[in-house]
C-alpha cells in the first residue's frame, strides 16, 4: 500500500430509490488523516452516500476504492473488513440490550470461539466511555437512556471498531456543548493517529473549528470541495441552499416586558435524582430558554409540565390550576415537541400526512369522521413553508432524510396553535435554512401570544431565540436572566457549568 493513493475514493456514484434519483454522479475523495466535512441541506443525499460506503445501501453505479484498491461492499461486514465504521444518524442501537452489549455488538470479546466474554466487553466499553468523558454503567439498558446518552453510546460503538475510516453522521446532534468538546478532543486524537474522518453536521461553527476540507452537496450532486480555510460561513450557506438565509438566525430584542399573571408556574419541583428544587414562571407570549448539561433534567422538567411525569414534590400550575395528567395539559393548551423523533415523534411506517394529522385529528374532523381533504391543504402549505423534501405527502416518514423527519415533528405541533409550546431539542438535524424558518415561526407564535419553553443543547440557538434564559445546574435553576444581559456564547457556556453570569439588573426569581 502506498501513500500516493487517497484513503478513500468514490467515483461516479449513482443511487435512486424507485423513480427518485438521490445521488447523481457523485465523486468524493477522502485523504489520509483529514477531517472532511460533508455538508448540504436536508435530503441532499449525505447519509445515503455514506450508507453506500458502509454497505447498508447498494449503489446503482460507480466505483469505490480504499487505498487505491477497488472494493465491493455488500453488507456491513464488508465495510468492517475494509476498516470503515460509521456513527449512524438514526442510531444502530438495540434498545433491549445493554450499553456494553451494544458497543461491542458483533465484535464482542470472546472466550473460545463460541462464548462471549461479557466481563471483558464491559471493561472495554467502560474505558471507551471514559475516554468520552461519560460515567455510564455498561449494564444500563439502552432503552432507558436519553437521546443524548444514546448518541454517546453510538459514538462509543463506532470508536470501538478501531476503523481506518470513520464516518460521523451528525454525531453532535443531541449533544450539549460539553460533550461536543470532549468529542472534538477525541476526533483530534484520532486524526493525529492517522485516522480519516468524514464529518456530517449542520452546525457551522463545528465545521470551521474541526475540519480540514469541506464538500458541499445539493440535490444529490457535489457542488464544491474546498479547504475550510478558504471559506466563510455565508459562502458555505449559499452553496448549500442556493441563497443566503442565515440572517434569520441572529437574535434581536423583541422589546417586550412580561408582567402580569404567568401562564405556567413551577414551584419547588423535585424529581430525584436529577431535579431537586426548580421554580420558574412563563408568561403568555414569552420565549423562555432552558439551558443545562446533558442529563441535567431538562427533559424531565418539560415532561412534568406536559403532564407525563408525576413529580416527587412541588407543583406545576397552569392558569392557577395544578396539572393532573397529560390530557389535562393538552386540554389546557400545552403542546410538546419531544426530543427523540424516531421514538416519540413519528410513526415511521405511516405517511407524512398521517403523521402530521395525528395530534390534530380533532381539528380535521367533525368529531367522528376525518376529512383528509381539509388536512391536506394545511399540510401541503407547511411542507412548502419548511421545505420538507418529500416526493409526496403519502411517502412513508421512514423514507425521509433525518432533517426532514424532524421538520414533520415540529410542524405537526404548530398546527395546534398551542398556548404553551414546549420544544425539546427541536432543531436536531435540521439544516441551517430550515432552522431560520423554525426560529421565525417561533417568534411569530410568541408574537401572537403563545408562550414558548425552548430546550436546546445548542447554545447558539438558545441565544438566537430566547427572551429570557433559565440555567439549570445540579437540579436547581441557578440563574434566571434576561437574554439581553448575556453578552457572549462563552458566558452562557460557563454558566451552564455552574459559573454564574454577572448581571447588570438581576431579575427577581418569581
Amino acid at each position: 500500500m502506498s501513500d500516493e493513493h487517497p484513503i478513500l475514493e468514490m467515483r461516479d456514484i449513482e443511487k435512486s430509490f424507485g423513480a427518485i434519483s438521490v445521488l447523481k454522479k457523485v465523486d468524493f475523495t477522502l485523504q489520509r488523516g483529514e477531517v472532511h466535512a460533508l455538508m448540504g441541506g436536508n435530503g441532499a443525499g449525505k447519509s445515503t452516500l455514506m450508507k453506500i460506503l458502509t454497505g447498508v445501501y447498494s449503489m446503482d453505479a460507480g466505483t469505490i476504492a480504499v487505498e487505491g484498491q477497488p472494493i465491493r461492499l455488500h453488507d456491513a461486514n464488508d465495510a468492517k473488513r475494509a476498516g470503515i465504521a460509521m456513527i449512524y444518524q438514526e442510531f444502530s442501537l438495540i434498545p433491549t440490550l445493554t450499553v456494553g452489549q451494544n458497543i461491542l455488538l458483533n465484535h464482542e470479546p470472546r472466550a473460545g470461539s463460541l462464548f462471549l466474554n461479557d466481563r471483558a466487553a464491559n471493561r472495554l466499553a467502560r474505558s471507551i466511555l471514559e475516554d468520552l468523558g461519560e460515567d455510564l454503567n455498561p449494564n444500563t439498558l439502552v432503552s432507558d437512556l436519553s437521546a443524548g446518552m444514546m448518541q454517546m453510546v453510538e459514538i462509543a460503538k463506532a470508536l470501538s471498531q478501531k476503523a481506518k475510516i470513520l464516518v460521523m453522521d451528525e454525531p453532535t446532534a443531541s449533544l450539549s456543548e460539553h460533550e461536543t468538546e470532549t468529542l472534538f478532543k477525541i476526533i483530534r486524537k484520532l486524526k493525529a493517529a492517522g485516522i480519516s474522518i468524514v464529518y456530517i453536521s449542520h452546525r457551522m461553527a463545528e465545521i470551521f473549528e474541526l475540519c480540514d476540507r469541506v464538500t458541499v452537496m445539493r440535490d444529490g450532486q457535489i457542488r464544491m470541495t474546498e479547504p475550510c480555510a478558504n471559506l466563510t460561513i455565508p459562502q458555505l450557506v449559499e452553496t448549500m441552499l442556493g441563497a443566503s438565509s442565515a440572517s434569520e438566525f441572529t437574535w434581536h430584542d423583541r422589546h417586550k416586558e412580561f408582567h402580569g399573571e404567568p401562564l405556567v408556574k413551577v414551584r419547588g419541583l423535585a424529581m430525584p435524582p436529577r431535579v431537586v428544587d426548580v421554580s420558574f414562571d412563563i408568561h403568555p407570549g414569552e420565549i423562555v430558554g432552558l439551558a443545562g448539561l446533558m442529563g441535567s433534567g431538562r427533559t424531565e422538567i418539560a415532561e412534568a409540565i406536559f403532564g407525563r411525569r408525576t413529580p416527587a414534590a412541588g407543583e406545576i400550575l397552569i392558569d392557577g390550576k395544578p396539572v393532573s395528567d397529560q390530557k389535562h395539559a393538552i386540554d389546557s393548551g400545552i403542546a410538546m415537541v419531544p426530543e427523540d423523533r424516531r421514538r416519540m415523534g413519528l410513526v415511521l411506517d405511516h405517511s407524512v400526512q398521517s403523521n402530521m394529522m395525528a395530534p390534530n385529528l380533532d381539528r380535521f374532523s367533525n368529531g367522528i369522521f376525518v376529512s383528509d381533504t381539509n388536512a391536506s391543504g394545511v399540510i401541503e402549505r407547511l411542507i412548502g413553508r419548511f421545505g420538507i423534501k418529500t416526493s409526496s405527502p403519502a411517502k412513508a416518514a421512514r423514507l425521509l432524510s433525518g432533517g426532514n423527519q424532524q421538520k414533520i415533528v415540529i410542524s405537526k405541533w404548530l398546527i395546534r396553535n398551542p398556548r404553551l409550546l414546549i420544544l425539546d431539542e427541536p432543531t436536531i438535524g435540521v439544516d441551517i435554512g430550515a432552522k431560520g424558518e423554525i426560529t421565525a415561526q417561533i417568534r411569530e407564535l410568541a408574537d401572537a401570544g403563545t408562550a414558548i419553553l425552548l430546550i436546546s443543547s445548542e447554545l447558539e440557538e438558545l441565544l438566537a431565540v430566547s427572551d429570557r434564559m433559565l440555567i439549570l445546574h445540579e437540579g436547581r435553576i441557578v440563574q434566571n436572566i434576561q437574554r439581553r444581559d448575556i453578552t457572549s456564547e462563552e458566558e452562557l457556556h460557563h454558566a451552564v457549568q455552574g459559573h454564574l453570569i454577572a448581571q447588570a439588573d438581576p431579575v427577581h426569581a418569581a
Partner: protein
Amino acid sequence: MGSSLGFIQDYSVYFFFAAVLIFFAVTIGDQGFLTVNNFFNIARTTAMISIVSFAMTFVIASGELDLSVGSVCALSALTCGLAIQGGYDWYVAASFGLLSGLAIGLANGLLVTKIGIPSFLVTLGMMQLIRGVDMRVTYTNPVAIPDPTFNSLFGAGKLFGIPSLIIWSVLLAVVGHVVLRYTTFGRRVLATGGNRLSADYSGINTSRIKLYTFMLSGLAAALAGLLYSGMMQTARYNFGEGMELAAIAAVILGGTSLFGGKASIIGTFAGALMIGTINNGLIIMGLDVSEQMMVAGGIIILAVAFARKPSH
C-alpha cells in the same frame, strides 16, 4: 421495491382470492361449485369468523391480540340461550349476550392497559377461564333456543332472498371499513399500533384506544355467538373452539401487520372468504380430509408468498 410491484403486493389477497375462485370454477364449476347457493354457503359459514376477524383487525392494528374470542362466542350464545329459556324476549336475551361479550372485552382491555399484562397472556387466560365458565353454567349440555324470530334474524333467515348471516357480515364489513379508514377512532387505532409512544405524545389516549378495541372484539365475538346459536338453534359450551387462530389468520392474510399500525378490513374479509372458499372447494373436489389439510395449508403459504417483505 418498485411501486408497480408494491401495488400487486398490497392487494395480493384479492389477486389470490381471484385465482382460487378461477381455479375452482374451471375444475369443479360443473360439480356445484359455481352456484349461487354454494356461494351463499361459503359466505354463510364464514360469517362468524369474518365478523370476529373484523374486530380482531382493530385489536391487531392497535398492536395487541385477542385469543379469548372463541370462548366469548360461547359465553354470549349460552347467556342468550339461557335468557330465552328463562322467558325473556329474544331482544332482551340477545342484549344480555352482547353485554356479556362487552364485559369480557372490558376486562381484557383493563387488564392489558391498567395492569400492563401482555394481551397474549391476558386473553389466553381469559380464553380458558371463560371456557370453564361456559362448561360450568350448562353442565356442558346444549341449550335449545326455541325462538323463531331470533333464529331467523341471527341464523337461517333471509331478507330479500339473501341469507341474514350474509347481510350481517357484509354490513359489518362496510361499517368496519368506514370506521377504520374514515374516523378519528380508526386513525387513532392505527397511530397507537404504529408507535405507541409517539401516539401518546400526540395526545392520543392509547390506553383508552386499546380498551375500546378489546371491547369491540368482545362485542363482535358475542355477536358471532348469537349467530352461531341462531344458525344451530342451540347454544353450546364449545362454540368457537379454535376460532382465534382462524380469525388471526384471516386478518394477516388480508394484509394487516401482526405488529400493528397497518390494517385493512376489506382485506380481512377477503382473507376470511378465501379460507372459506378453499375449504368448500376442496370438499367438493372430493379430496379426503388429510388431502384437504395439506392443500389448504399449502395454499395459505402460497397466497402470502406474493405478499411484501415485512418491514419487521
